[in-house]
């Protein structure tokens, strides 16, 4: 093995274990900075030691032990300076080691801290990726297209607020957990989308983002097994992730109707469908009506149920979008519904819907209109919409797809 690939392997192990290491130290020491710094020092130690000694059998345990030692060293040094700090640091979690079975996962506590409603939404995403996902500040900055200094400041400020305002390191109690889980799910879905939608398939880090989002969502589901929206979000992610390999071919985006369905991951689809069925049963038995994630999962279940794009039950999809519009009356939902309406009522009806949406800065609005105009034989208008869509996205796979579609338009007669 070359030195470079060993370093890459160590860094991957480190990223996989980062959330566990930081969460464990954060609970033990009640201080995110100490936990994060110690985790970083443990990585440096691993990069120094592992090339000679080999990667240990339990790398997570090694990293946690090493990080803990470093943290204790640091706290000793600081305690000599000021004993009060220790008192403050130790008060954060007054009920350690309660026997709560599956929920006893420090990473869950950390998720609820990172996604606390007292933090700005963009800070929640950044903190979750930094502390749980183990991504570097530079990687997060790149994923969200902001300068690294801006991202560093965002994370630093959020951590300062957690400390100064004493955001507790614990899973919220039963009264609060429903509201707080909504904030957590929003963050996880954003992370997933950043990995899935924004990437051109070129950046491997973003594949890590979808995997990370799924892993974290699975963890949340362990905590809240009866929560329909948690199950819905997990199902949604699995059913989207199942199509990932077929979604980009030759560096170009492949739309759902043109995807090689044989390339879909049947294992993920089976798991996603099982979750959707579980929710349908629960709702039929008088459970809470489905929220946005369950409805989106159901829509994706209909898509993944069709062996061939032509077998898609579009009527069912339109009905699900109708329900989704009730719980989430946004222009983006209306746009996605229009795509389904085009299959049921025709592209002219769908186009009329998009006319009423104020989404001119959104590439998918232009791309959808371009396709509808193309199907209506309105080539010149379609071309203009393709151009607008291309200008509004930086995603290379999407640009590739849109450019090909535009160039396939027949030259206009006369005009």
């Amino acid at each position, binding site marked *: 093995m070359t030195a470079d690939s060993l370093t890459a392997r160590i860094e991957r192990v480190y990223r996989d274990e980062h959330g566990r290491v930081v969460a464990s130290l954060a609970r033990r020491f009640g201080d995110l900075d100490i936990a994060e710094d110690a985790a970083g020092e443990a990585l440096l130690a691993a990069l120094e030691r592992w090339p000679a000694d080999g990667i240990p059998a339990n790398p997570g345990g090694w990293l946690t032990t090493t990080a803990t030692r470093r943290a204790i060293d640091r706290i000793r040094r600081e305690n000599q300076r*000021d004993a*009060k*700090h220790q008192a*403050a640091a130790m008060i*954060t979690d*007054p009920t350690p080691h309660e026997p709560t079975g599956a929920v006893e996962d420090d990473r869950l506590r950390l998720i609820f801290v990172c996604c*606390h409603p*007292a933090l700005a939404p963009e800070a929640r995403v950044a903190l979750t990726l930094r502390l749980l996902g183990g991504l570097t500040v530079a990687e997060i900055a790149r994923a969200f297209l902001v300068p690294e200094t801006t991202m560093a400041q965002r994370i630093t400020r959020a951590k300062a607020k957690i400390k*100064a*305002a*004493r*955001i*507790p390191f614990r899973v*919220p109690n039963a009264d*609060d957990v429903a509201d707080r889980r909504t904030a957590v799910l929003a963050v996880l879905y954003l992370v997933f989308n950043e990995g899935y939608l924004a990437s051109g398939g070129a950046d491997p880090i973003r594949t890590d983002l979808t995997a990370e989002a799924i892993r974290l969502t699975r963890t949340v589901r362990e905590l809240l097994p009866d929560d329909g929206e948690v199950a819905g979000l997990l199902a949604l992610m699995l059913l989207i992730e199942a199509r990932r390999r077929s979604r980009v071919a030759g560096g170009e985006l492949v739309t759902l109707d043109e995807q090689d369905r044989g390339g879909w991951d049947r294992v993920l689809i089976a798991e996603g469908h099982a979750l959707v069925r579980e929710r349908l049963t629960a709702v039929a038995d008088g459970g809470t009506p489905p929220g946005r994630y369950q409805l989106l999962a159901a829509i994706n279940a209909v898509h993944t149920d069709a062996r061939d794009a032509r077998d898609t039950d579009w009527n069912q999809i339109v009905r699900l979008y109708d329900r989704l519009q009730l719980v989430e009356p946004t222009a983006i939902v209306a746009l996605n519904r229009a795509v389904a309406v085009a299959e049921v009522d025709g592209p002219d009806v769908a186009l009329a819907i998009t006319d009423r949406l104020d989404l001119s800065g959104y590439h998918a609005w232009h791309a959808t209109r371009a396709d509808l105009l193309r199907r209506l034989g309105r080539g010149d208008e379609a071309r203009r919409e393709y151009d607008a869509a291309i200008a509004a996205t930086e995603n290379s796979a999407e640009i590739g797809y849109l450019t090909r579609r535009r160039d396939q338009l027949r030259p206009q007669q006369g005009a």
Partner: protein
Amino acid sequence: MAQYLLSVVGTSADYDDVDYTDPAIQQMFADTGKFNDQLQADGHWVFGGGLTNITDATMVDSTGGDVVVTDGPFAESKEFLAGFWIIEAADLDAALKLAAAGSKACQGKVEVRPLQGDPTAE
């Protein structure tokens, strides 16, 4: 335990032409009184009180050497501090719970800010 300042945000509408015989206003005072009693009973209370109208404020500035006294804040702000509590709470979640109850009682928005601890302890 940490201390938090719960600031009640008010506007001049809370002071101008208030009809104190209005049952809703009386209810608000009663609820706020009950909330104060509860804070004291549960050991959260440090201090608290309602403020008179912003037009009663006086600004004192000795930063330039001389003492300059002027009538009220310089900026005409639409929203201002109308009342406050200083509370003791275990953590932010506990403080937010109390703030929610306080906001409901006094029918005003409440801003929660931690008081600075001993800076040498940081």
